[in-house]
């Protein structure tokens, strides 16, 4: 199992979710975050004082079986890409185990 964490533009959420739905991967968790990468933060100004701000992003997390990783990553790339700086990153990391709280099922069955 792998955890796929995609940091995307807020505006891409609906496309990404629709894309994932189309390939039958429903389990997904979304969090609001802020960040900067190549796309630098932006200068904001409050009563004449400039401050450097971060940009709002969303993290879409899906834990999937090893075999689906590639497919899910591709879907996300396709649905979240605008081609402009700020499209975001996808990080894939190992998951040792998963449990479905309702049933206590473990492993890939649980996701």
């Amino acid at each position, binding site marked *: 199992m792998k955890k796929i964490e995609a940091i995307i533009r807020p505006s891409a959420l*609906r496309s990404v979710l629709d894309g994932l739905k189309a390939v039958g991967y429903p389990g997904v968790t979304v969090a609001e975050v802020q960040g900067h990468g190549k796309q630098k933060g932006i200068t904001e100004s409050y009563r004449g004082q400039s401050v450097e701000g971060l*940009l709002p992003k969303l993290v879409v997390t899906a834990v999937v079986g090893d075999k689906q990783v590639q497919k899910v990553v591709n879907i996300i790339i396709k649905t979240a890409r605008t081609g402009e700086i700020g499209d975001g990153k996808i990080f894939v990391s190992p998951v040792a185990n998963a449990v479905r709280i309702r049933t206590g099922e473990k492993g890939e069955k649980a996701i």
Partner: protein
Amino acid sequence: MGLFKYWLGMLKGKSAALATAGFSLMTAGSVWAQEAAAPVTAAAPAAAAPAAPAISAGDTAWVLASAALVLLMTPGLAFFYGGMVRKKNVMATIMQSFFLVALISVQWVIWGYSLAFGPSKNFFFGGLDWLFLDHMPDVSSLAPTIPHYAYMIFQAMFAIITPALICGAYAERVSFKGFVVFSLLWATFVYDVVCHWVWGGGIFTQMGALDFAGGTVVHMSSGYSALTLALLLGKRKGYGRESMVPHNLTMVLLGASLLWFGWFGFNAGSACAANALACNAFVTTNTATAMAAITWCLIEWFHHGKATSLGAASGAVAGLVAITPACGFVNLKGSLLIGIVVSLLCYAAIQVKVKLGYDDSLDAFGVHGIGGTWGALATGLWALKSINSSGADGLLAGNPGQLMIQLKTVLATAAWSVLITVVLYFLVEKTVGLRVPAREEELGLDLSQHGEEGYHI
């Protein structure tokens, strides 16, 4: 139709001048004033005004309180709209309304009031005799029991909120600079002019059109301009693909509540006196609003199985819009009917909008255009001379002519609003630019236009 010919002719001679007038507003204005003043004969002073009654402290107290209430409506609108947009555009949306309070407050005292209510000798606009409020008599013939300043500032609040209503149509995609220029021109060439027609002694005043608190002047003018802009600007980036649900409904409800509260000043204050007519306007306003909110919820119930708070708020605003021209002419039962019908119409209009695919972001046309039109016509249906002796009877009291008059004002206002909006749109889009570049729209107007964010960690 004579009406149409009249001002279309008028316009033809003016349109070139208009296009070049550009930013030298004041000069342009006075030139125009002289041109226009020439061919038309005395018409104005108009209206009621029994032989100089004394200033009444009670009436003044009510109109000042009403002016304060109406002032609050524009921030109310800021929150009503601000809650409906996405988080990244919340400050830009609030700023549009808030900044208009400032901008039009100044425009109005410098030239707006004069254009709208000045002592012109034509049907079309009021001239520039009262620039900077100079040379104004101490009392207006339109509100003989209160100081002129009270009437002027009460009217200022109407001039402020009207362009702010349009914001709902172009929310989330116009540049701040373009918005400012457009609004200033719109206030001058649409609002001030239509206001003169209806209340300032202009052509509609002469025709006997009934508009107690601004159905045509405020809601139709803004509503049809809103539709025009929504069509001209095109859809928001991602419309139909991205989720564009309200980012904060509590803010929407706060806005709706402040609107309802302030609208008592808007409507009941339009009696310009604390009298029985003001009370009638107060009661019909509250009743139509309530009935429209209930109706909207019922429609949702039938349509989706659930009533929503956004629906209740939307219905309330629709009700407020519709009763505005009628509140001082219809009775309680009329107001109940106006409230029921307006929600049916506006809800339907919004569903149609989605089908037609234009992007009136926050339904400025769907609510103000449709609701305002309905209100203006409904006034022609249910107006009663027994409610307001300086009004007229409507169709249902046996006077079909009134409905025709109302219809004419509707058409003329819509046509003028659309026409000028088209002109101004191109003017602004070609010069300072109105629609923001795609990248700025994606980033959000808060950051791209104002360099600030609504919420911070």
